[in-house]
């Protein structure tokens, strides 16, 4: 894979995102272009990861999991970061679009995080000898995912749209603390999980692969958030048009 592929594709994806955000008329087709790019990119990633990528020095072929594990966990963190930005924005300026985008990004982030943790568990079996270990990185990731599952559960339990939006925004800002804890857990504590890789520890042939994979899944992440955002907006529309709750009719008791 050429070295410039991740950078060029990242510029293309970000440009399409900007066009999507800036032009209402372009929204009908931009997401389709990004979905197509993401689908083709995933096919390229599968071919590269399974057949073309070099073997890892110690894990050999098992190291090929890196091309799907890392992008999924990164997309999870991107989703939760978009969520907290929208939550803060909603508290400053009560905008239903921000509330819908927060809900959408949280759900998509949970999806990517759950898949990433599942792949990490599968990867742990041949490398650590266990499917799961209660080490700092795995615990903090699990807590982070549970916080956001609780965020969505809270939103589904609350019927008042105003209260749901404000309370969930305030709560998820506190919950976002789990993300930096997860990120730095491998540096703060003695963890089975390796530390973050950098250009000194990863061969360029492998780095190009997982960076391109990240861009491909970023395109799919954007499409997923956009389609989930439309669902949230539709639900908001129906919820806010409901008539006010009325007290149920009480049948008068008849005394003998």
């Amino acid at each position, binding site marked *: 894979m050429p070295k410039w592929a991740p950078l060029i594709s990242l510029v293309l994806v970000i440009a399409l995102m900007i066009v999507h955000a800036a032009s*209402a008329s372009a*929204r*009908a087709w931009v997401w389709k272009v990004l979905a197509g790019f993401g689908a083709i990119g*995933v096919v390229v990633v*599968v071919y590269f*990861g*399974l057949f073309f990528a070099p073997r890892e*020095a*110690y*894990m*050999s*072929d*098992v190291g*090929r*999991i890196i091309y*799907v*594990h890392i992008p*999924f966990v990164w997309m999870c963190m991107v989703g939760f970061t978009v969520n907290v930005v929208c939550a803060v924005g909603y508290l400053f300026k009560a*905008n*239903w*679009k921000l509330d*819908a985008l927060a809900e959408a990004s949280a759900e*998509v982030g949970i*999806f990517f995080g*759950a*898949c990433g943790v*599942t*792949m990490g568990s*599968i*990867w742990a*079996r*041949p*490398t650590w000898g266990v499917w799961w270990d209660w080490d700092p990185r795995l615990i903090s990731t699990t807590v982070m995912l549970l916080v956001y599952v609780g965020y969505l559960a809270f939103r589904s339990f609350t019927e008042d749209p105003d209260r749901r939006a404000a309370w969930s925004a305030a709560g998820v800002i506190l919950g976002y603390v789990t993300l930096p804890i997860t990120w730095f857990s491998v540096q703060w504590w003695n963890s089975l999980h390796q530390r973050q890789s950098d250009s000194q520890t990863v061969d360029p042939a492998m780095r190009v692969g997982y960076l391109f994979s990240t861009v491909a899944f970023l395109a*799919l992440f954007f499409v*997923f958030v956009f*389609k*989930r955002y*439309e*669902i*949230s*907006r*539709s639900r*908001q*529309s129906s919820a*806010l048009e409901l008539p006010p709750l009325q007290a149920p009719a009480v049948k008068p008791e008849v005394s003998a």
Partner: protein
Amino acid sequence: MKRFVFVAALWAGLAFADIAPVPPPAPAPAAVHPEGIENVPTGVIQGGWGYVYACYIVAIGGTIFYALSLFARRPRGSPGKSGPQS
């Protein structure tokens, strides 16, 4: 005199104690880590393609499944125009 001989012998014993041949230390017991780390094998992992395939199936299958769930939950009506303003 007896006392002098006793003290001299004691002093000589103490003086030569330092240069006496030291017996070799007893062999240390085998290092045993409480978590059994010494049993961790070294080298390169062989095989493991089943785990690789499983991860790629989770990635691709999960993506397709989530895309289908979004399609199934899509709002009926004109997309992009639904939802309250501001």
